[in-house]
């Protein structure tokens, strides 16, 4: 039991905008009232619902590959020395599993969605998610280049495809469905990519990226998944890719979708030297079409490592940078590429990318449909979110950051003309209430009665980045986990799952395919329930 007294509460889900009121906690949930509970005096402090990250990469084959590829970063970063409460680890560009939990919680984030899991490495992913303490975790399974599904789409067998997807979600113990460069990663196995939405994917006659996207979105809706299709469009990062992004959104024809890291998909121009921001056009489209949510995938200057299932893009990035390159091929399912990268303010392309992420956050009117992410670790590491909050809340700070940029760079972006400054209420929306709603998690992202008692308390501070970087208290499931920068407790987080109903007969169809095409046997493929820490099966919804 706990009572938080006298804090200014920001709870956008209930329209509460900085009202001084008490928050009461019992048995890990928010309740109406508690008697004789210990209190936290939050006078002069700000109370937020715990942060929710809708799109991050914190566990599984690709981030682990990135960890292995960047020992130079582990050396220079601050180490977590083992103590009574925490285990050893390192932070940096690709924090170790336990450190990931400490860093997220240390910033006030209490729920994260791992955005890209191949089924073949789902066991590994869940083992790592288990080792990320404090935060609750969900994950999205990669299906847009799964050859069993592509074959079914080729044959026009939509109903069977739906049964297969339902089976695959449960087999991987996932929460949602992710599409990455639909068709492009399958084509990458032939050294090709999928750049045109309406052209057949290499190796197929009828399947096009457009059909994959529409088909998966339809299946996700038919199954009633609480989180819509999580979509990484074709042509990520390429100048002039706005056309592809808009075509993809039009092609969805009113179906729901979450457009991942839209910053990487909002460029104009014909090549690297003419690349420019098309954020206003994309923001207009977002504003007019309420079937979409998005996350920024914002970029901050500095070192990071890019990891994505988008193998062909990563090969291009390697050719551009001459840095290290890792490539993984995940049998019939997907792939992945890793390239360490440094975003530089003096680089024209990077300067445009930096601006586009902020422009999207500032130009999309509805904070309930655009969320704070950096596509960790691609645009920047998640522990740098407070810097982005400062950029959103302080126009003058933004101007200062742009002061050193070249006229050429400034002519390619729209940020200097944008005066909007986020309010605390809007920050609470884009960091917590909005992403929780987009993920379809009814007990997350708000402080109403019945919500999970995930609460962050910040000391009021004019230095926005410091305030959001160092919460005074972080409470997870009713337990104080961070106090004044110290880790007080490291409870296990929950694993959030969905179990869409499917016809058991589908196994008879799948089993022989495994014998013919997979290195893993069908019986070893599914993730067992025992691997999930504190599993919580969330309800499917009616999407009509």
């Amino acid at each position, binding site marked *: 039991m706990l009572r938080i007294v006298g804090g200014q509460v920001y709870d956008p889900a209930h329209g509460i905008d900085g009202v001084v009121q008490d928050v009461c906690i019992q048995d890990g949930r928010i309740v109406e009232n508690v008697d004789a509970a210990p209190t936290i005096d939050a006078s002069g402090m700000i109370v937020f619902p715990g942060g929710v990250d809708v799109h991050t990469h914190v566990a599984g084959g690709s981030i682990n590959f990135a960890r292995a*590829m*960047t*020992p*130079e*970063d582990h050396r220079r970063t601050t180490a977590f020395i*083992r103590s009574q409460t925490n285990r050893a680890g390192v932070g940096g560009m690709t924090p170790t599993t336990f450190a990931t939990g400490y860093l997220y919680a240390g910033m006030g984030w209490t729920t994260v969605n791992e955005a890209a899991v191949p089924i073949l490495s789902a066991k590994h992913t869940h083992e790592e998610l288990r080792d990320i303490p404090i935060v609750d975790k969900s994950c999205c399974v990669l299906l847009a280049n799964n050859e069993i599904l592509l074959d079914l789409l080729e044959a026009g067998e939509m109903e069977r495809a739906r049964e297969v997807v339902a089976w695959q979600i449960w087999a991987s113990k996932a929460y949602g469905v992710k599409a990455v460069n639909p068709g492009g990663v399958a084509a990458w196995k032939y050294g090709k990519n999928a750049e045109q939405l309406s052209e057949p994917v290499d190796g197929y006659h009828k399947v096009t990226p457009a059909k994959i996207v529409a088909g998966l979105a339809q299946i996700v809706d038919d199954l009633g998944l609480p989180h819509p299709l999580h979509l990484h469009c074709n042509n990520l990062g390429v100048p002039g890719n706005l056309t592809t992004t808009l075509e993809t959104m039009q092609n969805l024809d009113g179906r729901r979708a979450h457009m991942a890291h839209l910053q990487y998909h909002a460029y104009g121009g014909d090549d690297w030297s003419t690349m420019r921001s098309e954020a206003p056009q994309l923001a207009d489209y977002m504003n007019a079409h309420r079937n979409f949510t998005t996350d920024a995938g914002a970029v901050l200057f500095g070192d990071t490592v890019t990891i994505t299932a988008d193998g062909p893009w990563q090969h291009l990035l390697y050719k551009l940078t001459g*840095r290290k390159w890792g490539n993984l091929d995940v049998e019939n399912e997907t792939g992945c590429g890793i390239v360490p990268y440094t975003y530089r303010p003096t680089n024209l392309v990077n300067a445009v990318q930096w601006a586009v992420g902020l422009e999207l956050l500032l130009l999309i009117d509805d904070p309930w449909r655009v969320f704070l992410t950096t596509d960790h670790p691609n645009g920047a590491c998640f522990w740098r979110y407070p810097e982005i909050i400062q950029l959103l809340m302080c126009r003058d700070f933004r101007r200062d950051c742009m002061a050193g940029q070249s006229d050429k760079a400034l002519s390619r972006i729209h940020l200097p003309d944008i005066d909007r400054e986020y309010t605390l209420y809007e920050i609470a929306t884009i960091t917590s209430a909005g992403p929780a709603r987009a993920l379809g998690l009814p007990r997350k992202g708000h402080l109403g009665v019945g919500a999970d008692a995930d609460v962050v308390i910040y000391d009021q501070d004019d230095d926005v980045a410091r305030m959001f970087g160092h919460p005074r208290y972080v409470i997870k499931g009713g337990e104080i986990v961070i106090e004044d920068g110290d880790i007080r407790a490291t409870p296990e987080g929950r694993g959030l799952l969905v179990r869409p109903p499917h016809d058991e007969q589908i196994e008879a169809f799948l089993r022989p395919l495994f014998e013919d095409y997979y290195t893993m046997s069908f019986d070893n493929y599914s993730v067992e329930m025992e691997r999930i820490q504190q599993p919580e099966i969330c309800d499917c919804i009616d999407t009509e």
Partner: protein
Amino acid sequence: MSAIRLTLKEQPGVPLETEVLSPDALADLAHDEIRSLPVQLGKRRRRLDDFFEIEGERSDEIEVHGDLSLLKWIGRGMSRGRLTIHGNVGMHLGAYMTGGSIEVHGDAGDWVGAEMGDGLISVHGNAGGQIGAAYRGSPTGMRGGTIVIDGSTGLEVGMRMKKGTIVIGDTAKDFAGLQMKGGNIVLLAGAELRTGAWMIRGTIISLKPIAMLPTFRLARSYNPEFLRLYARFLSGLGITLPCAADEGRYDLYSGDVSVPGKGEIFVWQPAEAAASR
């Protein structure tokens, strides 16, 4: 200001991390503060005076005595002052250092001067591998400064170094100048196999014949002008580089063409050897 003198009194059972043994860390500290500085013994934190007898305070001149073979990171990141070691010393001596000088009267371990920016390290005995190298995963090794090893060294001397000078008195093991990007390596007694492999730029000078990789091509034999200037710089370190035309000349090999690179390896041919070819 007299030197701070430390004498090892207890040999650690496992490696001891002593990056506090650096003028930057000690120069402004009183005696008691020096004694209580933290050192990492395996996974445990201990005090500096658990291992050392300490005399003196507030000085950027430091003398360390004893067999320090298990002591790592001495002089890490130092930017000034003088550190003298009487005895052998362990791995990562002077790594990341940006100034000042280190002198070792004994042998040193691997990674001497790894990723250093400036300063001088001289080791009068032998040293391990990866002298002035880039740490695993890093794109760039030493970016400046000078390392002189009187004895022999291990593998990968100057790996990915970008600038600065490394002089090796006795034989260097395989892969000296591996993936070198710039700077100079002087091999007074030659090297074992695969010298200059993956070399992109930079200069290796060997005073003894070395086995050349097939991906290096003999470009010419001559007495390059810049070597006279370079010899003058080296003479300041007590090292003599022959460069007079009547003494002999240098065979210039260029490579490594497998990268492809524009590195150069100069191999000294004394007059009689050159004449007999």
